[in-house]
């Protein structure tokens, strides 16, 4: 096993274990903290894959903005931070089975796609951010989704304010 593989395994283990702990934690704030660790782990995976832009964006958006939002939401809506009691549902084996079947199906689907498992194509030394920028802005590529994204963000902002306004 090369060093790179060892590092990948370690980081993936951190991500997976924290993700499980998010679901299993009895204390909801602890769950949020494990989520943050998991998100950092994903950013580290991006960095290992040399997707630098994705790594920093992951930290900036997910950890910086979304995790903060989640923590605020938790603190604002939980009246008691005490242990919530029984964590598992009475019929829990059935959803577990369904989830595993779904996972197996997705894994098979991803595995049968061409290009899975092959090395990612080298970007020939070009700056990935420049390529991304060009892709986002050229009319032949992703210009329309780029502009639609801003409309989507606007809709999200307006929608959230409308909903929040009702309860204030």
């Amino acid at each position, binding site marked *: 096993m090369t060093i790179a593989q060892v590092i990948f395994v370690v980081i993936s283990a951190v991500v997976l274990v924290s993700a499980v702990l998010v679901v299993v934690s009895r204390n909801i704030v602890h769950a949020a903290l494990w989520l943050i660790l998991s998100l950092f782990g994903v950013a580290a995976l991006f*960095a290992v894959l*040399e997707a630098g832009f994705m790594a920093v964006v992951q930290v900036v*958006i997910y950890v910086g*903005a979304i995790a*903060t939002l989640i923590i*605020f939401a938790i603190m604002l809506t939980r009246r008691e931070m005490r242990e919530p009691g029984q964590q598992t549902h009475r019929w829990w084996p059935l959803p577990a089975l369904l989830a595993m079947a779904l996972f197996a199906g997705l894994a098979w689907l991803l595995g049968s796609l061409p290009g899975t498992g092959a090395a990612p194509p080298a970007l020939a030394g070009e700056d990935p951010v420049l390529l991304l*920028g060009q892709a*986002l802005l050229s009319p032949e590529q992703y210009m329309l989704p780029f502009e639609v994204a801003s409309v989507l963000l*606007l809709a999200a902002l307006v929608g959230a*304010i409308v909903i929040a306004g009702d309860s204030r």
Partner: protein
Amino acid sequence: MDNAWSVVGIFMIVAIVLPGAALIMARLLGPKKPSPIKQQTYECGVETVGESWVQFKAQYYVYALAFVVFDVEVVFLYPWARAYGQLPLFATLEGALFILILAVGLLYVWRKGALEWQ
């Protein structure tokens, strides 16, 4: 070791371990005399009453929300800023339109009074 990020990884590990080591050293060097009075939570010198969790204003959530939207917007703008120089003027205007749409959003939030700290 070709990956620039491995340097960042080492850097961050050291950045966390160094203060951690200093903390451990301080714990070893400092006095340890725990007493119930010292370990009580501080409430301006008065005895603590009631639970430690209080209801907070929804206003915090609104700020965090606005922050998420504008953060995502700015993240989209970074590739634009990197590439607009190499592309025709049209690309620059695309970015300007992007910003304008979200400026309208800010104006909406402002006029709705969602930015007032109560």
